[in-house]
């Protein structure tokens, strides 16, 4: 335990020192890795208990668009808009989760319902194009460096924010991992009927983790919007984003604390590396290789990189729950 604590502190020290030695481009990548790592971690809170959501883009979209719209139209600071976006996203999770869990919509059916939810949010944003700008996207009104508007031209501020939020994500993940809820949720994901029979409130346990996951995803979306200063329905709520969240979290390993972050590191390093490597010389090659690698990862390492490494070191404690 002590060794791990030292390793964690050393890692944190490296993360704190990095912005002083890396060029701006790599800082940009680091911010993206931390923000996506946070969102993937939020997804894995549900994913590891068999609640495979293919619609986390919905929560991200609500979290990103609500503060930006409030800021553009009503001059409401993101400090108020973001909590509102998070609350709305949690409410959305509740509205979709409660009937799902109450009526025992599980497995593939749950995945499809969330997929439809993602599409509903995406298309609603596009349909409200008079307000949201539709597929052209939305740019939060820029006023330069401002704490009030949460806008910083200097990347170092967002690096710090992303780091704090990422640590918050890990902390919540661990809190769920250590809590009583975990045993209940694992029992539910193994056999829902049996779990209900021994007195576990299935609906409540699932709703709790869904709402936490939705709220954190919305926070990630809001920060993403504030950082990039540009929102597009396809890049926050599109089906590509929702699936990318699932793939990266699974590729990294959703049963390990740092798994989703490793997934973010891998996918971003891969996309950026392939993009820089191939660039304009062979357009599309980067995406093709990226897709093939993802397929190989999911076939040969279903428990993710960290799960695979962990299994190599010690015998498996618990097998992955069946779909």
């Amino acid at each position, binding site marked *: 335990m002590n060794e791990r604590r030292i390793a964690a502190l050393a890692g944190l020290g490296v993360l704190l020192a990095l912005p002083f030695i890396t060029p701006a481009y790599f800082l940009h990548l680091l911010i993206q890795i931390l923000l996506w790592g946070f969102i993937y971690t939020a997804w894995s809170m549900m994913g590891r208990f068999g609640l495979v959501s293919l619609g986390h883009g919905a929560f991200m979209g609500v979290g990103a668009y609500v503060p930006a719209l409030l800021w553009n139209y009503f001059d409401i600071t993101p400090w108020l808009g973001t909590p509102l976006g998070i609350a709305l996203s949690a409410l959305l999770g509740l509205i979709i989760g409660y009937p799902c869990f109450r009526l025992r919509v599980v497995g*593939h059916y749950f995945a499809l*319902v969330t997929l439809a*939810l993602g599409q*509903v949010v995406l*298309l609603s944003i596009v*349909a409200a194009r008079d307000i949201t700008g539709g597929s052209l996207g939305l740019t939060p009104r820029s006023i330069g460096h401002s704490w009030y508007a949460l806008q910083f031209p200097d990347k170092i501020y967002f690096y710090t924010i992303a780091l704090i939020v990422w640590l918050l994500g890990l902390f919540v993940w661990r809190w769920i991992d250590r809590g009583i809820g975990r045993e209940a949720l694992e029992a539910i994901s193994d056999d829902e009927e049996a779990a209900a029979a021994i007195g576990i409130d299935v609906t409540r346990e699932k709703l709790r983790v869904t709402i936490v996951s939705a709220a954190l995803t919305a926070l990630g979306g809001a920060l993403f919007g504030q950082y990039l200063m540009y929102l597009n329905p396809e890049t926050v709520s599109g089906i*590509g984003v929702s699936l990318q969240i699932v793939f990266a979290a699974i590729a990294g390993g959703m049963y390990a604390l740092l798994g989703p972050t490793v997934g973010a590191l891998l996918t971003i390093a891969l996309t950026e590396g392939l993009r820089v490597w191939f660039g304009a010389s062979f357009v599309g090659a980067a995406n093709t290789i990226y897709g093939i690698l993802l397929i190989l990862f999911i076939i040969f390492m279903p428990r993710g990189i960290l799960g695979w490494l962990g299994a190599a070191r010690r015998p498996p404690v618990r097998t992955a729950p069946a779909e």
Partner: protein
Amino acid sequence: MGVDQRRVYLVTSAIGGALAGLGACLLALQYDVHPFIGNTFGPLIFMICVLGGLGNMIGGFIAAFIISQIIAIGGYYFSAELSYVLAFILFILLIFVRPQGIIGR
């Protein structure tokens, strides 16, 4: 029982892929083609299959008819996107009421 599982899976997924390809060829007569065309139809296809009941051909036809009519009529009265929103919301509600599909037992 002597059934070669692997072979059956291989052949079914090959036939499934081929039929999807044929469907896409026919779609190309109606729609313009672009690399992201799958994104528009992917979710809809899933939903129609589930609404019809998985493995139920007749149900699939009926579900496809209902969904496409909602999209077409909704597109006429509201807007293209809102009609899709309507179709997806209907799908979510139907999953709650009839997870076995519209004409399933």
